[in-house]
C-alpha cells in the first residue's frame, strides 16, 4: 500500500516530495450530505428486502408482462367508440378541462394575495412564516385526499372536487408565487421606497411586472397538474367529465377500445396545453 502510494505521487509530482497521501475530496462531508447518503442506503436495502419477500404465488412475471402489452395494443392500436359519440366525448373532455381551469383560477387569485404576504421582502417575517407554514401543511396532503375530506361535508361529486382541488392549488401557487416575488432585487424596492412610493405602488409597479413571466409559467404548470387531477377526480370522486367515462370503460364495461379513444383525446389536450404555454411564455418575455 505505502509503496503504491509512493509510486503514484512520484508520477504526479514528477518525483518531487509527496504532498498528498489521500485522494483529494471534491466536497466536504456535511451533515445534510450524510443524511442523504443514509437515506439512499436505507431505501436501497428496503427495495432489496421488498423484492425478496414479495408474495409471487400465482403471478407469472413473463405472462403478466405479455398480457399487459396485449392490453396496450388493444388500447393504442384499435381505438373505437362504443357507448358514446365523439361529440359527446369532446363535451365530457370540456367538462374536465373546465374543472381544471376553474380550480386553477380560484387558486391563482387567492394565492396571488397570499403570495404577496408570504414573500419575505414584501411582508414581515412573522406573517410570512405563518402563511408559509400553513400552506406547507396543506400541500403535504395530496389533492385527492383533500377532495375526499371535503366530500365528507359536500358529498362525493363536483363540489367536493372543486373545493379540494382549489385548496391544494392555493397552497401550491402561494409557495411558487412568493418565491418568485422574493427573487426581485432588494435594491429595486429600495429605490422605489426612496422615491416615496407606497407599498401597494411598489407591489403593482415593480414586483408584479418583474415576476409576471414566472407567475404565468407556474400557473400553467398548475393548470396542467389540475387537468390531470380532474381526469382522476372524474373517476375517484364522481366529479364527472371524461375521467368518469374512462372509469366506466375500464371498471364496468371493460371496453379497452373506447379507453383508447379517451386516452388519445387526453393526449391531444395535454399536447395542446404544452404548446399554448410555450406560446404564452414567449409572448410575455418579448
Amino acid at each position, binding site marked *: 500500500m505505502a509503496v503504491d502510494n509512493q509510486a503514484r505521487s512520484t508520477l504526479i509530482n514528477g518525483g518531487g516530495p509527496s504532498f498528498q497521501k489521500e485522494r483529494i475530496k471534491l466536497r466536504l462531508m456535511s451533515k445534510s450530505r450524510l443524511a442523504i447518503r443514509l437515506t439512499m442506503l436505507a431505501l436501497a436495502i428496503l427495495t432489496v428486502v421488498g423484492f425478496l419477500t414479495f408474495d409471487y404465488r400465482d403471478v407469472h412475471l413473463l405472462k403478466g408482462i405479455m398480457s399487459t402489452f396485449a392490453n396496450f395494443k388493444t388500447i393504442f392500436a384499435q381505438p373505437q367508440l362504443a357507448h358514446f359519440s365523439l361529440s359527446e366525448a369532446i363535451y365530457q373532455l370540456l367538462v374536465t378541462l373546465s374543472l381544471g381551469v376553474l380550480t386553477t383560477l380560484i387558486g391563482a387569485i387567492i394565492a396571488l394575495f397570499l403570495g404577496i404576504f408570504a414573500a419575505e421582502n414584501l411582508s414581515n417575517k412573522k406573517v410570512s412564516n405563518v402563511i408559509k407554514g400553513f400552506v406547507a401543511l396543506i400541500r403535504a396532503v395530496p389533492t385527492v385526499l383533500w377532495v375526499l375530506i371535503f366530500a365528507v361535508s359536500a358529498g362525493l361529486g363536483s363540489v367536493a372536487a372543486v373545493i379540494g382541488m382549489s385548496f391544494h392549488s392555493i397552497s401550491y401557487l402561494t409557495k411558487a408565487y412568493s418565491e418568485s416575488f422574493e427573487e426581485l*432585487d432588494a*435594491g*429595486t424596492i*429600495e*429605490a*422605489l*421606497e*426612496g*422615491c*416615496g*412610493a*407606497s407599498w*401597494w*405602488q411598489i*407591489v*403593482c*409597479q*415593480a414586483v408584479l*411586472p*418583474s415576476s*409576471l413571466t414566472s407567475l404565468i409559467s407556474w400557473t400553467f404548470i398548475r393548470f396542467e397538474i389540475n387537468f390531470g387531477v380532474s381526469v382522476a377526480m372524474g373517476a375517484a370522486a364522481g366529479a364527472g367529465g371524461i375521467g368518469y367515462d374512462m372509469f366506466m370503460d375500464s371498471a364496468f364495461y371493460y371496453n379497452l377500445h373506447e379507453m383508447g379513444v379517451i386516452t388519445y383525446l387526453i393526449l391531444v389536450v395535454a399536447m395542446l396545453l404544452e404548446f399554448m404555454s410555450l406560446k404564452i411564455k414567449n409572448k410575455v418575455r418579448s
Partner: protein
Amino acid sequence: MKTLLQFKNVSKHYDKKTVALSDVSFSVNEGELVSIIGPSGAGKSTLLRCINRLIDATSGEIIFEDKDVLQIKNKSKMRALRTKIGMIFQNYNLVERLSVFENVLHGRLGYKSALVGALGFYSEEEKQQAIKILQSLGLDEQIYKRCDQLSGGQKQRVGIARALIQEPRVLLADEPIASLDPSSSKVIMDQLKKICSTLGITVLVNLHQLDVALNYSDRVIGISKGRVVYDGDPASLTDDHIQQIYGSDREALNLVVREPKEVAQKI
C-alpha cells in the same frame, strides 16, 4: 449661502458590534456638490440612506429644510420628505422588465394617491416632463426600450431621470460610477455637475475614486470607520489627510492618487 442639510452628532449602530456611523456632524449648503470619500465599509452608503430614512439613524439630528427628519413618524409625511430627495445607485436599481419611460415615471409615485400610482396612471404634463428630461440626458431614442436592453451608462442616466422627475432639492448618489467604464463615468459625472450648476440641485455623491472626487466636487467629506476625518476644500486635501481616510497602507495609496488632476483628465 443657505444651509440645506445638517448632520448633528449622528450615530448608527446596526448591532452592538457594527458601528456604521459615530458622531457624524457636517452641513451642506444649497447648490453644493459634495463628495463623500472613504474606503469600503467606512459608512458612506449608511450616511446617505439616513437622509431619506431608508435607514434609521440611532441617535442625533438630521436637519433637512429646517426640520429634523428623524422625528418624522407619519407615513404620508415620510413620503413627502422622500419626494424631495432623489437617489441614484451603483446598480441603477431599475425595474428591468419595464420600459425606460415607465421607470422614469416611477419618480412621480410619491406624489400620487396609492391607487392611482399603483395602476400606473400619469398625467400628460408628467409624461411631457419625462420626455423632456430624457431628451436632456440624450435618451430620447430609448424611451420605449426595455431597461434590460440598455448599457450600464444608459441605465444610470435613466436612474438620474427618475430622480430628476421628482423635482428634488437634493440628489443622493451612492457610488454612481462604480460599475461603469471610464467614458460612461465621465458622462455621468458631467451630468451630476450640470444638474448641480444649472438646476441648483444640491448633490451628495459617494465615491471611491479619489481623483474623480477631487476633480468634480465643491467640497470633500472624508470618512473612515464611521467618523468624519476631513471636511473641506478638495484643493487643501493633503497626503496626510488621505492617509488618515484610507488608512496607512502606502502601497494602496500610491495606486489611488499620484497626480489626481492628471489622472482625472484622462477619463
